[in-house]
């Protein structure tokens, strides 16, 4: 009961809700991405793209919100830029359509999931 109350209490914070939605979308996008690699059809592609783009938008909003709340520090700017670079790198590889590069896409997807886990972690209210 206490755990459920704690869980519900976490969602009273706007950035926690945003990060959580981002995590859910990133997970959906990751699973559909893995299915795409296996050669599944256009449904997977639509889910992958749709969820991925919304998650990227949420990433941007969270970054702006962080700068507005805590200001610009080297670590903070560096962290958000690194996150954006991982996303950009993944997009580049997908769009390159090179078979060799494609080997690393699932690793990048896993990195993105880890990044979202960290984003959820830092947005859990204390």
């Amino acid at each position, binding site marked *: 009961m206490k*755990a459920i109350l704690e869980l519900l209490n976490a969602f009273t914070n706007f950035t926690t809700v945003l990060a959580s939605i981002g995590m859910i979308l990133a*997970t959906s996008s990751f699973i559909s991405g893995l299915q795409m690699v296996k050669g599944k059809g256009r449904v997977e592609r639509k*889910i992958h793209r749709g969820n991925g783009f919304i998650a990227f938008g949420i990433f941007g909003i969270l970054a702006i919100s962080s700068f507005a709340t805590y200001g610009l520090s080297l670590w903070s700017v560096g962290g958000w830029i690194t996150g954006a670079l991982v996303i950009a790198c993944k997009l580049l590889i997908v769009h390159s359509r090179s078979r060799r590069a494609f080997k690393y896409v699932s690793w990048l997807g896993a990195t993105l999931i880890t990044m979202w886990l960290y984003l*959820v972690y830092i947005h859990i209210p204390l």
Partner: protein
Amino acid sequence: MAKAFWTTALVLASSLLWTDASRAAIIHVPEDFKSIQQAIEMAAPGDEIVVKEGVYRENLLIQKPLVLKSVAGASSTLIQAADESRPSIKIDKAVNATVTGFSATGSLVAGVLTSGASNVTITGCQFTDNGSGMVMHGTSNSTLTDNISNSNAQYGLYMEKSDNNRVERNTASLNRDKGFFISNSDGNRVVANNVNLNSWDGIMVYASTGNIITGNKTLRNTYGIVISESNGNEVSENTTIPNLFLILPIFLIYLGVVSYLLQKSLLKALYKERG
């Protein structure tokens, strides 16, 4: 008969006078004195100084037992250090001094510094953007409760050679070194504080014995609670990683999988209809 009457009258008058003299005066700032420091200097031991809301640009020095309190609380009564090389509030060798409901900022040394004092009470205050929030040097039997000490350049609370103090229900977050640094101090009770998001340790106990550290929250510091070169300290029931940190990510991944399956079913149904 007349002699008895005059004797009684004399006793009554003297007892009234005695009561008047021993009763603490209440001094109002800025009505009675423009600055808080003037009021402190003119106050007799045991007096109460009541301060209206506003920004007071001064460095306070308290060296006698008195009560300094604000009318409107810490959110609207600010002590801005006039000289940044001195603490915003300094309680020096005073016994039974009380500070309640002030904010203190702008000192490179400390928001409040107690030195060689005892039985000091600091409660309901906010110390932000100072060198350290609260500093205790050689202070004993004192109480720090319900204070906020955030975003200071070094420590939220620095305790050095200070024994038998109570530190309860304070918040020390986003300090750029440690939340609480307890050094060479014995027999203190550090209970139910929130010490989160500090750049280095949440609570550091160094070369100290017999302290009780219990029921504190120390989240998202580099290290939660560090005990170094110390023995005989009681560390119990502190929270460093709450259950939520584990439950929420698992719950969200589960929702992500469910969301994928739902979207897939919906889109498949949609394309079937069209096809």
